[in-house]
């Protein structure tokens, strides 16, 4: 199943709201639209809060494979090259 995209969900929600506001929809159908609208707004909210704050840098480990490590840009000026980063990684 293709991943539902945030912007698509938001567009759908917009359409549902204006359709409801236009009126002339039977009650039962209105309720169905409403439920779908609630689901979409729930989904969008979830997407907004879903990701976890994380800043990582990819570094080469002992086996030369890249692995993510926490990255702090304020200390990065000491790490002047990939070589240096690798050395530090070796020590860890």
């Amino acid at each position, binding site marked *: 199943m293709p991943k539902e995209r945030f912007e698509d969900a938001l567009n759908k929600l917009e359409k549902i*709201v204006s359709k409801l506001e236009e009126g002339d929809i039977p009650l039962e159908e209105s309720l169905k639209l409403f439920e779908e609208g609630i689901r979409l707004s729930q989904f969008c909210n979830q*997407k907004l809060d879903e990701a976890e704050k994380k800043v990582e*840098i990819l570094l080469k480990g002992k086996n030369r494979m890249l692995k993510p490590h926490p990255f702090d840009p304020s200390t990065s000026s000491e790490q002047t090259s990939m070589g240096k980063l690798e050395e530090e990684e070796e020590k860890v």
Partner: protein
Amino acid sequence: MELPFRYILTVSELTQEIKDILEEKFPDIWVEGEVSNLKVPPSGHIYFTLKDDFCQIRAVLFKMQARALRFVPKDGLQVICQGRVGLYEKRGEYQLILETIEPKGIGALQLAFLQLKERLEKEGLFDPTHKKPIPMIPQKIGIITSPTGAVIQDMLHILERRFENLHILLYPVRVQGEGASSEIAEGIKYLNQLTDVDVIIIGRGGGSLEDLWAFNEEGVARAIFHSKIPIISAVGHETDYTIADFVADLRAPTPSAAAELAVRDKREVSNILSYLRGRLENQMIQMLQGYRTDLSYIRKIFKEPGKKIEQYFLRVDDLVNRLRVLTSWIFKKGGEKGLRLNEGLLLRNPMQRVKNIRLFIREANRRLEQNLRYSIEIQRQRVGGQLGKLNSLSPLSILQRGYSITVKLPSAQVLRDAAYVKEGDKVEVRLYRGNLFCRVEKTEGP
């Protein structure tokens, strides 16, 4: 006979001497002219003739040096060459053995840039149909740039300010110098292997054309083109354009701008969402309340509460309940959001549909009353008419007009003919008010 002294040289000796003279005289020179008759055999060395209006000289740029050239020399190009004069003994030919060639009038990098741009454009790498949309809310952003320096710090700062809970994955690369372009291309390929990166930013800060060169390399251009993940390129300052910018799905004028283009401001998006959700809810609540009001109104009109109307009431109540359940379900996550939404609800006007229904009912009612009044009026007028008729038929009303009734006494027979009485008979005359008792003095026929 004394033969004059003759110093006889071999061809080799002469050639060697010419070679020595030439090579000593022209060990390092700059020559300008036009490239013609250019050939690149499989060996990879570049052979051409350098000429001006009057003369020409053969020239060669060996493969080692040719590899360092960033542009492609072509016939007709005006160039400045650096090299020495060499002599190829086997053929007795002298030629320029070049170290490097520069296009005349335009920098070599500039020309290389233009040549690559033209070639890739023809190939369709810049075609807008290949551009992928940048997602509105990326879950994970890959950044390919130098881990040191202000650029990455600025980007991280902006990203965090706009969207505090982002996952950012930095792929560290050198952004200039030998090997930088292949590191960047590697990075793009690597991040494409991960399944959860939604957008990639590649970039670096400002610098000379030479500094930015990695982003003008074909390898980087092709890596960008083949990336399945949308790429924002952000190289140098606003005025710097690189090949990467043309191929990328989106060009940002600066790295900071790239950070802003990569994510929408979370509060902004959140507000849009709340607003839409508020409208959605408000609409539904208003609609159901409208139905409810309408029904109770109808119930008032029809004094006998029919079973059907009661059923409608139950149904509306059921819908309102379901709405409440749904509403509390949305907001059990955060009371604060619910509060904000409720404020929104209070601030917003009732929706048009409910207004319309109410207006319609009000109008209908007004017309109903009007009709009723009208029909009563008609009835009243009809009744009034009948009363009038009735009145006009009443003998009293005739008397009112001055007529009178005469009856014979004592029989009280109403007299319509003078012949019924004779002189001396007693009669009673009934007037509108009061009676006269009279004696007949004389009778006359009609």
